């Protein structure tokens, strides 16, 4: 229900962040859904996602596209992450035309998703889920910049301490930002981690993050 919903960030940070899910429905179209899901995945792959995967098999930074495709069975839910709205418009156009038949969900800025749908010739959003934010002991949460990275994994598999360690390693010249976002993408098995956005957030975080001892 909430997997890709609670990504934190402002409009600038989220406007080019889209998670596209393909989901068969138990009791309706799950039986015999494997070829439909494979078709959906292949269409998504053609439009150049930055990440793609399924929860059980992993994503393209853990395994191969061939493995992900071959592992699809009836009921598999797949996720593809995009960093560009134009790709989303083209993707929706093709999904509308070829209509794999499984449910298609896009997590992103509501207005942007609606605009993309209209440009692709679809009507209004069918059903929508809003996040009302985080309640309770919010003082226990890490800082907002770190939260932006953490919330890109819907299963909360990215550790705040790992982000801190990566920032220190980048500042010390031990690692590149790219190698860090690839590792974070590996932690997030499903393929929801947007590496392009991750790189931008790291660049922002680096200038504000204090490293007590560089050596």
């Amino acid at each position: 229900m909430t997997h890709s919903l609670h990504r934190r960030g402002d409009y600038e940070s989220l406007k080019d962040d889209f998670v596209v899910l393909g989901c068969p429905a138990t009791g309706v179209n799950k039986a015999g859904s494997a070829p439909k899901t494979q078709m959906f995945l292949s269409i998504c792959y053609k439009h150049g996602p930055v990440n793609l995967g399924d929860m059980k098999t992993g994503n393209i930074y853990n395994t191969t596209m061939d493995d992900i495709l071959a592992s699809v069975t009836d009921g598999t839910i797949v996720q593809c992450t995009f960093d560009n709205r134009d790709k989303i418009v083209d993707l929706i156009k093709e999904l509308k035309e070829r209509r794999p038949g499984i449910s298609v969900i896009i997590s992103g800025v509501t207005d942007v998703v609606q605009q993309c749908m209209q440009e692709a010739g679809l009507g209004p959003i069918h059903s929508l889920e809003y996040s009302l934010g985080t309640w309770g002991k919010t003082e226990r949460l890490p800082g907002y910049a770190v939260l932006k990275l953490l919330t890109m994994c819907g299963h909360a598999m990215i550790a705040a301490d790992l982000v801190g360690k990566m920032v220190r390693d980048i500042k010390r010249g031990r690692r590149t930002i790219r190698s860090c976002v690839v590792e974070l993408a590996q932690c997030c098995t499903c393929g929801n981690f947007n590496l392009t956005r991750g790189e931008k957030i790291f660049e922002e975080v680096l200038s504000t993050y204090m490293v007590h001892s560089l050596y």
Partner: protein
Amino acid sequence: MKADKDKCIACKRCFAYCPMGRIQTFHRHEKIHGRIYIEIDQDACTDCGMCLRANICPVKALYQEVEDWPREIRGILSNPLIEFKGSQVPGRGTEEMKTNDVKGSFLPGEVGVGVELGRPGIGAYFRDVEVVAMALMGADIGYQLAEENPVTHFMADKNTGKLRDDVLGEKATSAIIEGKCKLEKLPEALKALQAAAEKVDTVFTVEVITKVTPEGEVPVKQVLEELGFWYSINSKNNLGLGLPAYAFYGDKGGAS
């Protein structure tokens, strides 16, 4: 998750990968002279398997035992690779919102209300999950629990939201309470959740689900704005491309 004390060399490489933070302690090996090993706090660990999947341990000391009830629910809810047999969906929730276009789980006039406790990076004990579940069920709003959801399965009384006593001390990386009520009951549901937020020792995210009208109106939007609740600019959107489409408005209204 445990670390084999005969293999572990306390190199600390696994520490940073734990979504629950620093939950390890150092110990001196009683038989191997000079050897320090780590122990993972079994109460704080949610058996999510992240440290093991990171494949970071140079001596392969980390291992996950097959756990018995009730501890096994930690892995079921925390490890994204484990499928909950009740929902037949890997992970912590259900597919209901994702497939609303073909299943009609959330009809016009209804609103899905979901609460996910513990995310990110804090985790949630089921005693806190019970506080929120009982707040929703006790609000007398006709809240219908999602049957396939793992937390619903752990309830001793689905009318009150009371969980089984043997799970209350267990902890998950996150756990989701899912259900729905009538749109007019949404203010009371949110009020109950505000009160519950004062009582829990963790965080929870709140989400609402609605069928968008064929004219593009989002029915919950007005309610949230009137009540002054913040909602995010980003959302999860079902495009309505699933087949066969559920007829929300009967034969005349089409399937949109």
